[in-house]
């Protein structure tokens, strides 16, 4: 019985939903489209609940860390306090527009979030200097392409030489686009194959097997 509940029923649900969605996409039959619509609405509701589940899990995991006094349990306490505080202020009227909530967003969340992204520029330059090495013919091609693309994106380069944007655009539109198309088509075929395996019950990764 437990095998049926844990494996067979979820597999049946997955296969049924997948087939329903595929049929609805290709065949405009009213029964199919209303069933697909209903299934999609269920997903929205389930996804909403999964957010609550995630929040509950966050509290449980961090409470356990505090109670066991594991190293870094102070941070766990900080997570719980900030989570509950932000949640309460976010739900306070007017929802998500409470001045205290916006203050937290503006002064606690935004600066580190922006800084982390901004730091990428530092590491890019450092990687360009220290990590990128030309050892093979392919790496020379990569260096030349990267160089022209970088220059094409710098408005100052067009002032120096009109050719930079043209060469950069050609690299983007021809070799790079060709590579990306190959990637997309390959990924699409792979997704089809994976989808078939899921529908047929051969792929059970989602069930934790």
């Amino acid at each position, binding site marked *: 019985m437990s095998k049926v509940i844990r494996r067979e029923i979820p597999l049946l649900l997955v296969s049924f939903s997948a087939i329903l969605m595929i049929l609805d996409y290709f065949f405009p039959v009213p029964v199919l489209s209303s069933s697909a619509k209903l299934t999609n609405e269920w997903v929205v509701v389930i996804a909403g609940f999964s957010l609550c589940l995630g929040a509950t899990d966050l509290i449980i995991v961090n409470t356990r860390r505090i109670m066991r006094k594991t190293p870094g349990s102070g941070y766990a306490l900080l997570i719980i306090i900030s989570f509950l505080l932000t949640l309460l202020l976010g739900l306070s009227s007017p929802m998500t527009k409470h001045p205290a909530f916006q203050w937290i967003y503006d002064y606690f969340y935004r600066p580190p979030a922006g800084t982390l992204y901004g730091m990428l520029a530092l590491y890019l330059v450092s990687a360009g200097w220290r990590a990128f090495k030309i050892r093979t013919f392919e790496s020379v091609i990569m260096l030349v392409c990267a160089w022209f693309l*970088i220059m094409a994106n710098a*408005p100052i380069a067009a002032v120096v030489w009109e050719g930079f944007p043209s060469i950069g655009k050609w690299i983007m539109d021809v070799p790079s686009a060709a590579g990306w198309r190959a990637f997309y088509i390959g990924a699409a075929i792979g997704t089809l194959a994976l989808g078939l395996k899921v529908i047929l019950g051969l792929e059970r990764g989602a069930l934790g097997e």
Partner: protein
Amino acid sequence: MGAREVLRTLERLDSRYLFVLVFIVTAFPLVFPLGIPVKISAPVQKSYDAIEALAPNSVVLIGDEFSAPSWTELGPSYIAVLKHLIRKNIRLVFVSFFSAEAPAAFDTMIKPRVDFAKLKYGVDFVELGFVAGGEAALASFASDIQRTLKVDRYGASLSELGLTKDLRITHFSLVVELDPGAHLSEYLRQLQAPYGLRHISITYGVTAPAYTPYLLAGQLSGMLVAIRGGAEYELLIKEPGVAVSGVDGVSTSHVLFAICLVAGSFLSLVNRLLSKEGKGK
């Protein structure tokens, strides 16, 4: 110290010197603007033309997947496009499917910089907020807006708001999507392939090569890439703002990166050749 030692030391240069250099090179043009001319690229011009061609009172869906880290790359373009849409008397519907923080980011970073005061909520624009469920939610929204969402983000019933009362996905003339680099295909699959909606993407510089095939295929009606795209758009709508003032920094930092890339590779090559020569002796 001999020439070889100098070259080796330079190759293994402490990253912190480079970090200081990046800071100086980026900050300098912010303090002393260089005024480098910005040429309008074809994808930005196409985006502008697509919005310019919209009839007044058209409805545009804003796929707001914006977040705080996206500010530098997407923020200026977002603001410039919204200013243009509002100037054209276009009605706007904001919704997020992938970024839960987008409504909060919109409140604090975008809304204060765009003149929403003259617009009437519920008639000229509606904020639907975040809808959980990713692509399935997007598909559900496309098939029936009122069944997927009963209320807007403030709790007002969609059936009571003039703009959303009878709104269908086919009523949208255009989709403008704030894309932090991952969700274009979902939007195109669920909105363009079945309903033929035109799509403009505002995206990161690093994502632009991945989205170029969509642009070349005509699936994208336009694309604004990073702060440079924002600067070009600000110039097109003749309202220079934060992007135009920051684009000089883009120039100088890109040139520094290009120099570092070549210099680092050159140093490594020379050092390798010299060490081989040393072993030969």
